């Protein structure tokens, strides 16, 4: 057996590798698509119970997440801050649809691609940008940075930097809610790369065993850093649920209405049964894994295809088609968001860095902890 044979994917990925490319496009991806999007919902906003005001709020939120990150990237490249910067651009329908569907005290925890999640859960553009800049006015006082946005008061428990490491924490949030008899659903988001981590499986087992009110939700954006989903994980991601007898669902993450509909239904089910769900939301990230990603693992055509399905454009079309907004109203939203983001940049820029004394703060709970010296 040659080396290649050992390390070539098996199953569906291998079939695609062997089969002629459907698109026939020169330079097309190794695989037909990074993710196969399921059909979006056919339900109208009205049928979903979404009113014009809510839809406009969702639209504005998505535009804010997009512009916030575009400006963040610019500030990064201007050298305003360093470290990691994992952009969520392209995936905004997931955060937006989810928060719209959940109750305000339902718990959210996610991985390091967390800016969008912060912005939908009460981290203001100012606090977010200041956190990126490492300023004392940041949502985590400048101590977390890009990967550790959080707003615990609003039940957003933060972004975490160890792939899969936060999944047991999500299990623990749900455990505590159940222990205390609180009617809260925990939604634990992760990237497709985390699906391969043991932490997910240990937690899924206990969640199913102990009937924890939690949803394990994979934002499958097609790539674990630079490795295509089908090259890092065998079979379909949602099939992981089968081994635990867990309820599961695949959702189109490029359509905010589809995300909203699915999350609404599943959250209600969790509240009713206190049984966990495993959810695969298929989406796409437009940017690299982080700032230093040359993105050699995918080609322009694939990107263009997904950009043509852009969730913001899609919702805009709905708003215009349903005459819920005029182009002028849309333009006003863009202008407002632009102002908000530029104000955030200015705020972050002018904010003070943390005092030296902050170095020793927040390590322990007691007022005068002992530090080893």
């Amino acid at each position, binding site marked *: 057996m040659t080396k290649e044979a050992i390390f070539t994917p098996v199953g569906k990925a291998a079939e695609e590798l062997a089969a002629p490319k459907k698109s026939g496009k020169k330079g097309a991806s190794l695989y037909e698509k990074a993710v196969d999007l399921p059909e979006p919902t056919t339900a109208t906003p009205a049928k979903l119970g979404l009113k014009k005001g809510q839809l406009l709020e969702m639209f504005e939120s998505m535009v804010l997440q997009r512009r916030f990150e575009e400006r963040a990237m610019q500030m990064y490249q201007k050298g305003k801050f360093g470290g990691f910067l994992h952009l969520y651009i392209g995936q905004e329908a997931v955060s937006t649809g989810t928060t719209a569907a959940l109750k305000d005290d339902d*718990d959210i*925890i996610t991985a390091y691609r967390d800016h969008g999640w912060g912005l939908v859960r009460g981290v203001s553009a100012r606090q977010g940008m200041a956190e990126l800049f490492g300023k004392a006015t*940041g*949502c*985590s*006082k*400048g*101590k*977390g940075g890009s990967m*550790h946005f*959080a*707003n*615990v*008061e609003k039940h957003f*428990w*933060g972004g*975490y930097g*160890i792939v899969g*490491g*936060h*999944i*047991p*924490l*999500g*299990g*623990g*949030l*749900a*455990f*505590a*809610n159940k*222990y*205390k008899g609180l009617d809260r659903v925990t939604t634990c988001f992760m990237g497709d790369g985390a699906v391969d981590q*043991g*932490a997910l*499986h*240990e*937690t899924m*087992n*206990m969640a199913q*065993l102990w009937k924890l009110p939690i949803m394990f939700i994979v934002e499958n954006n097609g790539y674990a850093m630079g490795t295509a989903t089908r090259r890092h994980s065998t079979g379909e991601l949602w099939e992981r649920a089968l081994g635990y007898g867990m309820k599961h669902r695949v959702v189109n993450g490029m359509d905010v209405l589809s995300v909203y509909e699915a999350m609404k239904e599943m959250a209600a089910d969790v509240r009713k049964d206190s049984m966990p769900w495993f959810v695969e939301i298929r989406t796409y990230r437009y940017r690299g894994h982080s700032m230093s990603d040359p993105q050699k693992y995918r080609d322009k055509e694939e990107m263009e295809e997904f950009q043509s399905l852009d969730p913001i454009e899609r919702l805009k079309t709905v708003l215009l088609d349903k005459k819920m907004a005029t182009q002028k109203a849309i333009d006003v939203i863009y202008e407002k968001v632009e102002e908000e983001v530029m104000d955030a940049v200015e705020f972050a820029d002018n904010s003070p860095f943390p005092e030296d004394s902050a170095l020793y*703060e*927040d*390590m*322990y*709970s*007691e007022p005068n902890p*002992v*530090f*080893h010296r």
Partner: protein
Amino acid sequence: MAELQFREALRQAIDEEMARDENVFIMGEEVSEYNGAYKVTEGLLETYGFKRVIDTPIAELGFAGIGVGAAMNGLRPIIEFMTFNFAVLAADQIINHASKVKYMLGGQVSVPIVFRGPNASAGQLGATHSVAYESMYAHFPGIKVIHPSEPGDAKGLLKSAIRDNDTVLFMESEQMYGLKGEVNEDPEYLIPIGKAAVKREGSDVTLVTHGKIYHTVVKAAAELAKEGIEAEIVDLRTVKPLDMDTVIASVKKTHRCVVVDEAHPFAGTAAEVGYLLQRDAFDDLDAPVVRVTLPDVSAPFSKPLFDAWFPSVKDVVDGAKHVLYKS
């Protein structure tokens, strides 16, 4: 005061704290129906039921992390590891999450959790069941590490650990669970974390130790006394925060120090105490600080090899004589 076994003292501490605060629960392998692998949790299921005394699958990473998440969300978990050797599988949750979440979220959450279980060797258990981890965890900010040697200390310190608002690692020993000692039964009797105790007074040499090997040191002190050498024993009780004030006060009296540490030598507690003594008590030392530790070798199974591996009373006596220039 009552004379209790080490395991009974621990159980009393857990029982009293569970009775006091219903957010306290205990979770781990075999803690519930089986009554605990080492019977620490015996009878707790009857009192508190399955909700608060929880058997877990053999999934240390998973249940340690669920504990951390529960602590973030307002509970006070006690996570029992059957041994700290297995906690290595959960190290990501202890080191990357429990100890850091508060800091990296700018203080938005706390993680009031106790991870406890036996640590270090316990006879011929082979290489993977014999490791002392206290210095490894003590290395990380955000974690307190307690490693008592006697039932009375164990109870008072475990109660403090459960009431502490941050992450505490509480280390025991399989070989000490049956050890008896005087235990204060006042439910409000707490021993502060981070305070060492002078367990034997002496003027000639300071023996610094903690955990199970304390009992080897006690025997060595008795041997030394036969030769007219009066050793002072400082039982650290808490490895971190490290109570150097007590150690230094003793060394200022004796001018000599041997650190006896049931761990491998590299970057261990002994090394740390030695460093701090040369920094803070340099002019009071009449001899370099000596350490008595395990060798830089994994635990062997064979009895004679194991005995050669584990520091003996003679090793401690020799160490003391060495710093007294009597070897």
